């Protein structure tokens, strides 16, 4: 390394560093755990797209007041 920050023909190097160091596929860490492919039970001819399934899942979870028995109090 000379005293100057970069040589003139290192514009390409800078472009490369900007890509190879900051972008590209990241495989570090063990963030993903094993994934299971799950099918839901469904019957008949009509199957819905997943966005509606998401709408179903995003509904407020059952609150304590709708439960009785040992499940009450956990919401």
């Amino acid at each position, binding site marked *: *390394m*000379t*005293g*100057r*920050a*970069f040589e003139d023909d290192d514009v390409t190097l800078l472009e490369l*560093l900007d890509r190879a*160091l900051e972008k590209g*596929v*990241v495989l*570090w*860490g*063990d*963030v*993903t*755990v*094993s*994934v*299971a492919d*799950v*099918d*839901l*039970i*469904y*019957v*008949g*001819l*009509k*199957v*819905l*797209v997943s*966005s*509606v*399934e998401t*709408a*179903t*899942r995003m*509904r407020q*979870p*059952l609150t304590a007041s*709708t*439960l*009785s*028995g*040992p*499940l009450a109090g*956990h919401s």
Partner: protein
Amino acid sequence: MERDEDRPGAGARNGGGSQGGGEASYVYAVVEVRDVPIPEMLPCAGVIGAPVYAVASQGLAAIVSPVAPEVFSAEALEAKLHELTWVAANAMAHQEVLAWLLTRRYTIAPVRFGTLCSDPDHVRTVLTRHAQHFVQTLGRVEGATEWGLKLSCDGHAVAEWAKSRNVQAGRMTGGVVGMSEGAAYFAHKQLEQRVRKETAHLLGAHARDLHTRLSSVARAAVTHPVPAGGVRRDGPTVLLHAAYLVADASVEAFHAAVCTKPGPGAPPGITCETTGPWPPYNFVNTVLEELG
């Protein structure tokens, strides 16, 4: 018995589909009816305000509502998906029916929202033909509920924390002074990469530990894919998105495990959201179309 199916000519109808005119069965769930007899008509309103019935057969019951097939045809749904209020209202109605069953301690195999059986008789046929399969499936989820978990982190906060703990970072600030600009640039990049890798490993370990702990308390567990691309600097990153099948007796232990305070070595800025109890959507692996 089932009011609508008893109407004259009902058995002869060949299913609604896009031909219209017929009545289809909207299906909410299949339940086990061993100890607790199920009423023929449930005291709750179903989707589009339709009444809710139980179609029983050999210790099982399909929970259904009669609906006009056009309302839930693929084309109609395609259009309605854009009307979120319609979807939300009916998704809630669907969930309310399941909630009613859940609170009365029925073992439920929940069915995806918007599922129709074109021929009302087909429902009983499927129940009868595949009774053993259903019993097995229901046996797996008996006496348990599903709980969802989402673990996220604030990438920026974690990166700052990792940097502050990184030994080289401390050395860097002192050492840079003597370096040329170029060398300092590369040293800085090296440190950045180390910190990022370290951060990713720490977060991954934390997520894995939590999942292992919760899986040991649960009867079953599944994880959903999280977006690839590593920890984002500009927003929350989902580390773990999972569902756990927890036996009723273990629910308290499950919550205790979720709420365990992170140890002194854990990074800051990690949030954990749990939702539940849900009917066991993620633990009934059956595709009935394959069963025929």
